[in-house]
């Protein structure tokens, strides 16, 4: 057998290959679809956290932290689909600063999703909340979120600037309840605010220097029924985050210890969500049982 005739070989590298190089380098990188999370707390009510990315606006990726009730291995609890909360951070406050709240709510049976926003401002990409809701209702195949959330029981909430955007999201539809923490509706939504179709909670700090109580109270009165306005006595603006250092630095000290403020916030928010997401209004009577609160229901 004679060897095949040799043909002169010339180095050839199609330009197309150069263009495809970056594509091939990036292709195959699927979006994260974790089957289990990192354990945040163990004990009688374990809670875990997992990181997702959502494709949004065609070419963006929105990072979303999901905190959920888990077993000791960080896998989601078995059982019926759970109620959920999409929580929007305040202006220039990272979502991680609300992990204390997400963890406390998850220990009470809620799935909490915290999307990030460009520049730390929810107003820069207001639809990230909608994309986060879509993550909960149509999660990546095989991920821990599959079958975890009841699509009909998803609320939206936000602190400060996040609350302003949350109102717009609730008005757009898709959410079953709205909670504002030291916040008020977007002035541009004034015309359609009366058509808000879900129960709402406005939670205010008595000593808030950034969103003054008088302003929050006035704005809360515009929310249509069923709505409840709750004042946490002795609480400041940043006590809704992990630390009230910014209040102290701004000469706006709290009269309630941070741990106590966190405990009351968790109690009020979880009782409201439990009532609103089960079709029982705002749960105002239940909220009156939380110490250190002033409750006005409409």
């Amino acid at each position, binding site marked *: 057998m004679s060897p095949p005739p040799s043909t002169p070989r010339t180095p050839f590298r199609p330009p197309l290959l150069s*263009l495809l190089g*970056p*594509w091939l380098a*990036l*292709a195959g*990188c*699927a*979006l994260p679809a974790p089957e289990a999370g990192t354990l945040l707390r163990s004990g009688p009510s374990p809670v875990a956290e997992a990181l997702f*990315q959502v*494709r949004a*606006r*065609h*070419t*963006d*990726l929105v*990072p979303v932290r999901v905190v959920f009730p888990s077993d000791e291995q960080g896998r989601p609890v078995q059982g019926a689909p759970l109620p959920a909360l999409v929580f929007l951070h305040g202006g220039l406050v990272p979502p991680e600063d609300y992990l204390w709240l997400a963890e406390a709510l998850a220990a009470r049976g809620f799935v909490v999703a915290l999307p*990030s*926003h*460009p*520049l730390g401002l929810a*107003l*820069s*990409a*207001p*639809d990230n909340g909608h994309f986060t809701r879509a993550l909960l209702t149509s999660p990546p195949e095989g991920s821990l979120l599959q079958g975890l959330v009841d699509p009909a029981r998803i609320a939206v909430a936000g602190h400060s600037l996040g609350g302003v955007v949350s109102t*717009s999201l609730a008005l757009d539809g898709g959410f079953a309840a709205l909670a504002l923490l030291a916040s008020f509706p977007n002035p541009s939504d004034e015309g359609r605010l009366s058509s808000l179709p879900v129960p709402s909670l406005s939670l205010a700090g008595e000593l808030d220097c950034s969103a003054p109580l008088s302003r929050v109270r006035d704005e809360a009165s515009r929310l249509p029924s069923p709505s409840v306005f709750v004042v946490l006595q002795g609480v400041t603006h940043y006590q809704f985050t992990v630390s009230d250092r910014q209040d102290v630095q701004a000469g706006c000290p709290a009269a309630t210890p941070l741990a106590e403020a966190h405990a009351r916030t968790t109690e009020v928010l979880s009782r409201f969500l439990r009532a609103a997401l089960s079709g029982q209004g705002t749960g105002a009577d239940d909220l009156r049982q939380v110490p250190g609160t002033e409750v006005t229901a409409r």
Partner: protein
Amino acid sequence: MRALVLTGALLLAPVASAEAPLLTARSRVDSAHLSLLAGPHGVGLGFLLPRPALPDVRPSAFGGELFVLPGTGVLEVRGSAQWRLTSGEGAFSASAQLGLTALGVVRGPADVGLGPHVGLFAGFGGPRLEGFLGAQAGTEAFLRTGGPRFPLRGLLGVRGRLGALGLALTARAGVDLEPTLSPTWRGDVVLALGWYGVAPTVETTAASAPPRP
């Protein structure tokens, strides 16, 4: 000061991805060169090919870019034609761009986008050092996720050249409009390192062009 900090944050924010319409703005038709592009969101390659500076030669130049955004898994390919709007003899120059952008989403569900873009730029200076500003707009539609998306940008930049090397810094900010979504604010900065080659190049401004009849 607060505005300066906010502007800086807007331009440098690592998650404020900014796509389209075109990274490279030119108020003056430059000499032929290759560019390395780098910004907070990605890196890329670009080129410019000027055409002979004759009155009946339109457009004045062609350019193209490939930009890779590893953080979001997006590739951008752009091509454009440039029209000189001023003679180029003085310190003031102006030009217009018309081109196409193609976008490829390669992380997660694949998607492809395509659309035209336009730009209008004005600059002050010369071929060696120039400051410029401009406006860009585009339309993009995507195969899987639809659209259309309408990016609008304002930009400000400075470009310098020393021998075979050039450097340009462009800052852009603006908004993406889409019928079913809220406006999304964008910002980015891009540094372009240009290589004009070792051979003597001919400035393609009208000042060096043959006399017009």
